[in-house]
């Protein structure tokens, strides 16, 4: 496991500014002080200080000292933290995360990182198992007493899924693999195995009893959301919150595999119409809604996707200034742009602009206004735009299975993406004529089939199929099996007459009046306090 044992032939042997070569066993003083303090804060359960060191010091040190080299090896720092097993696993997890972010990991490192996650999560899995060895319970003791920041716990789950995705992409690029790499891949066929990944996330979710906790919270028997998942009665938040974030992890993995239905099912225990622990970390909030919205888009539940994209984009717009210094800032901006692209797709297929807040709408018009107009046209150019936006904004789909090593080595890292894109464009094509129908329905309250058929230059029987397609495509089947209308303009056919009904959501006045009453009362109160001379 020693970092010293790695082969740094991939340019990792690089040195800081061409000066001292990287020596994994050399621990500079700032690092010494960092691990000593972090270790102490963890033992003292000082979440605030842990968070500061984790969010700020770690990145500052990385920027200053480890811009293009890994951190010192865990073996080298272990002596400063009483060789604490759990702390060493956590340190190693950060060590790999930093390596993935700044350098390109070798195959050996990818596999070792997987092993590290196994040790890390295994410990937590053993938490509540009946029989553990004495050695393990020492470890358990350490874990049970830990209270880690949500940000850190989220990053662990997030990174775990990211490294899985990255491994699948890496493995699928078979063309340039050396014989040693292939031998190593075959030898470690369990590393980043899709079932292993899913089982870890599932196990964390189950062992943490998070679903029951959320259920009981609804009845007031349990506090979880109210305390942001932290435990103020001396317990640990680690397993509970890891289990919670694992549900988001499962959603993401299933989306990467193209299994949108299962993905959404995994997220069901979290009520995304409300704030929750998932909104307490911006990265988790964005990941959740991005995948939730994407899955709904693929399932043709456009209204649901539009609603949630709108909410999160508004939220990001209002709060992004507070994240400017965060290491996640770039990621936030990227996902923000991607979600605008997805919203553009949704609104082009289902023009429910009234669901979109004015602020979001003006951003949207600025970014994609012109493209959106062209996307309504359904010619070759508009297909190219759907293709472009989808490719830019979709998740990095993966093929989870290992290649057949006997056959000639070909790259298959694009296969999964190409399939999802193709099926999506297929759907777009099926909806080809709907926007034409829509333009006509907009200007008529009644029109005969015959007349509309003439305008659209199709025969009457074709028009009937187009109208039925409109109905089918604008009415999706919800998770509960009920039919949901996504139509902005609806109609029905009475023999050979089309009657158009524009669904107007009645304006909600109640809330407006309540606000004004409270406001007026405040004004009157202010006036009463002013004494006129």
């Amino acid at each position, binding site marked *: 496991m020693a970092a010293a044992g790695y082969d740094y032939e991939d340019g990792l042997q690089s040195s800081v500014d061409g000066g001292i070569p990287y020596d994994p066993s050399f621990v500079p003083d700032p690092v010494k002080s960092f691990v000593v303090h972090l270790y102490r804060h963890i033992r003292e359960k000082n979440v605030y200080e842990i968070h500061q060191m984790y969010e700020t010091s770690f990145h500052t040190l990385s920027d200053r000292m480890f811009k293009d080299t890994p951190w010192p090896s865990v073996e080298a720092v272990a002596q400063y933290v009483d060789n604490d097993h759990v702390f060493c696993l956590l340190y190693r997890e950060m060590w790999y995360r930093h390596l993935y972010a700044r350098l390109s990991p070798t195959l050996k490192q990818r596999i070792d990182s997987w092993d590290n996650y196994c040790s890390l999560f295994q410990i937590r899995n053993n938490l509540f198992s009946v029989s553990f060895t004495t050695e393990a319970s020492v470890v358990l003791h350490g874990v049970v007493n830990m209270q880690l920041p949500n940000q850190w716990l989220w990053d662990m789950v997030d990174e775990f899924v990211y490294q899985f995705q990255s491994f699948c992409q890496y493995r699928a690029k078979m063309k340039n693999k050396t014989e040693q790499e292939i031998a190593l891949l075959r030898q470690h066929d369990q590393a980043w195995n*899709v*079932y292993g990944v*899913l*089982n870890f996330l*599932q196990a964390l979710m189950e062992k943490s009893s998070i679903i029951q906790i959320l259920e009981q919270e609804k009845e007031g028997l349990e506090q979880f959301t109210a305390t942001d998942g932290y435990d103020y009665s001396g317990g640990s938040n680690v397993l509970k919150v890891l289990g919670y974030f694992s549900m988001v992890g499962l959603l993401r993995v299933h989306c990467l*595999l*193209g*299994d*949108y*239905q299962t993905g959404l099912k995994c997220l069901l225990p979290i009520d995304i119409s409300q704030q929750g622990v998932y909104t307490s970390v911006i990265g988790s909030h964005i990941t959740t809604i991005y995948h939730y919205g994407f899955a709904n888009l*693929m*399932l*043709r539940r456009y209204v649901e996707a539009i609603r949630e994209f709108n909410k999160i984009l508004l939220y990001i717009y209002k709060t992004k200034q507070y994240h400017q210094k965060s290491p996640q800032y770039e990621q936030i901006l990227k996902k923000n742009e991607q979600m605008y692209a997805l919203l553009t797709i949704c609104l082009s297929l289902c023009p429910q602009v009234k669901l979109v807040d004015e602020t979001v709408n003006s951003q949207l018009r600025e970014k994609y206004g012109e493209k959106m107009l062209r996307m309504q046209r359904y010619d070759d150019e508009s297909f190219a735009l759907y293709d472009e936006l989808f490719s830019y904004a979709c998740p990095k789909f993966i*093929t989870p299975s290992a290649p057949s090593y006997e056959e000639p080595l070909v790259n298959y890292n694009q*296969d999964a993406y*190409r*399939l*999802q894109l*193709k*099926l999506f464009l*297929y*759907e777009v094509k*099926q909806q080809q004529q709907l926007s034409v129908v829509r333009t006509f329905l907009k200007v008529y309250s009644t029109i005969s089939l015959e007349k509309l058929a003439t305008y659209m230059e199709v025969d009457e*029987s074709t028009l*009937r*199929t*187009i*109208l*039925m*397609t409109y*109905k*089918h*495509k604008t*009415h*999706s*089947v919800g998770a509960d*099996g009920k*039919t949901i*209308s996504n139509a902005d303009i*609806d109609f*029905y*056919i*009475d*023999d*050979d007459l089309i009657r158009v*009904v524009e*669904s107007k*959501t*009645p304006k*909600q*006045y*109640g*809330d407006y009046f*309540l606000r004004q*009453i*409270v406001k007026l*009362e405040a004004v009157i109160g202010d006036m009463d306090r002013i004494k006129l001379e």
Partner: protein
Amino acid sequence: MGREQSQMAYTVEQLVAVNPYNPDILPDLETYVNEQVSLQTYSLDANLCLLRLYQALMAMPAPDFSLCLFLIPERVQMDEQFKTLIVLSHYLETAKFRQFWDEAAKSRHILEAVPGFEKAIQEYAVHVLSLTYQKVPRSVIAEAVNMEGLSLDKFVEHHVANSGWIVEKGQGKGQLVSLPRNEFNHPELKRSSADIIPLDHITRIFPVLG
């Protein structure tokens, strides 16, 4: 039959619930699917996947078929029989029922191996018709469910008795069928979301009212 099947379904669902990501349960699942399609002599391996897809098609208007396609590698989808299926699904998705039935007639042997296939598609057709029409010409129904003459009479009679269809005399152009009202073909039935104010909002003005 019903009882045995539901017992089986129960165990399989339990199996999946306990081992959602365990490849070792695959043989059990395959057995389950085989029993579901109640095939006895058919050569399974080659057609099993196809048969599952036919079943997915039967779930229309639910998107089960597209969900399956998202998960099936493209090279498998390039297979001739898959292509037929994709074409069939395309006709259903775009309500081209005439073309659908013509195409389906060419794959009779498979369709006959999936019990209830025809009936399931007819139900989907009726679903789409009910979303679209208040009053629909009999000829349009005939095309959508692929029936005529006596069998169509029976079909319509059945729906008159069970689903509230009403047959009207057309004005010289043949029969009209009035479909039961729902919020999609009678949009005015849509529950207008009245302006309801939750109690906790009212509490905001309690001090004012007091």
